């Protein structure tokens, strides 16, 4: 009990006086007071949990600032990941909208009845290189996300984002091609979804 009290007393005496300084650091990192307050709180929680790793002779403010910066960077990485996931889901929604557009334009059968080989190759060639590379490797050559990521030296999340965006651009280009070429006609047959292409 005495040890716990001494632990907390030491923390209160050494760490808490730096709270105003940490707040300044947090504002500099986050750019706003509300997020800065959350970050300061997270910083002190972490500092408390790891107080036994603090060397009493060292600079406590610097130690806290390091924790603060790390907490901020972790938070930003998490947010960036969730934004990426949201972007990927929006691309899926865009695919459904594009299907509605194809149906309304009378080219619902676009990919099942038409020989689009040359048009697809041309549309792929017209993509920006960063999108073309992923769609060629993943959708034409059948590489998994992991294999594409390794080949291109980018994270898997980046592969997915680029791939989904590339697919949208391809679908848009092919839809425009079919409409311009006057392929509109009755609806075509349905084909069952086939998952596990990249499992």
């Amino acid at each position, binding site marked *: 009990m005495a040890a716990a009290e001494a632990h907390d007393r030491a923390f209160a005496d050494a760490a808490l006086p730096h709270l105003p300084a940490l707040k300044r650091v947090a504002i500099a990192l986050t750019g706003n007071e509300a997020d800065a307050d959350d970050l300061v709180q997270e910083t002190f929680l972490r500092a408390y949990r790891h107080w036994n790793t603090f060397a009493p002779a060292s600079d406590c403010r610097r130690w806290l600032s390091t924790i603060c910066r790390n907490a901020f960077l972790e938070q930003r990485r998490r947010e960036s990941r969730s934004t990426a996931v949201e972007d*990927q*889901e*929006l*691309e*899926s*929604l865009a*695919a*459904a909208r594009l*299907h509605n557009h*194809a*149906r309304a334009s009378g080219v*619902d059968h*676009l*990919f*099942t009845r038409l020989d*689009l*080989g040359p048009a*697809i*190759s041309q549309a*792929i060639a017209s993509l920006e290189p960063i999108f073309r590379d992923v*769609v060629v490797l993943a*959708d*034409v*050559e*059948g590489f998994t*996300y992991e294999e594409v990521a390794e080949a291109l030296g980018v994270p898997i999340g980046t592969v*997915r984002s680029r*791939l*989904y965006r590339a*697919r949208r651009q*391809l*679908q848009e280009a*092919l839809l425009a091609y079919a409409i311009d070429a006057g392929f509109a006609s009755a609806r075509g047959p*349905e*084909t*069952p*979804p*086939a*998952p*596990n*292409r*990249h*499992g």
Partner: protein
Amino acid sequence: MPERSNCEAVVRQLWPYLDGVVDESMRERIIAHLEMCATCKSHFDFANAFLEAVARSRSDVPADEELRTRVVQALSAEGFKLSA
């Protein structure tokens, strides 16, 4: 009639599902939804047909014996032995 919010949640997973990268519980949820929602199923079918069309667009590169020979020769210089 499936709820609209369910439809959106399922369609948000369209590409990951077709690529086979959703987890098992999500996969089962999507399959169950597609069995009762013709609209969502048509979106998935359309996207799947697109992927199949893209995969079919691959142009086959003819066998290049000259290149193969060159490669094997270069490998041989490194100690490579071609087994029958």
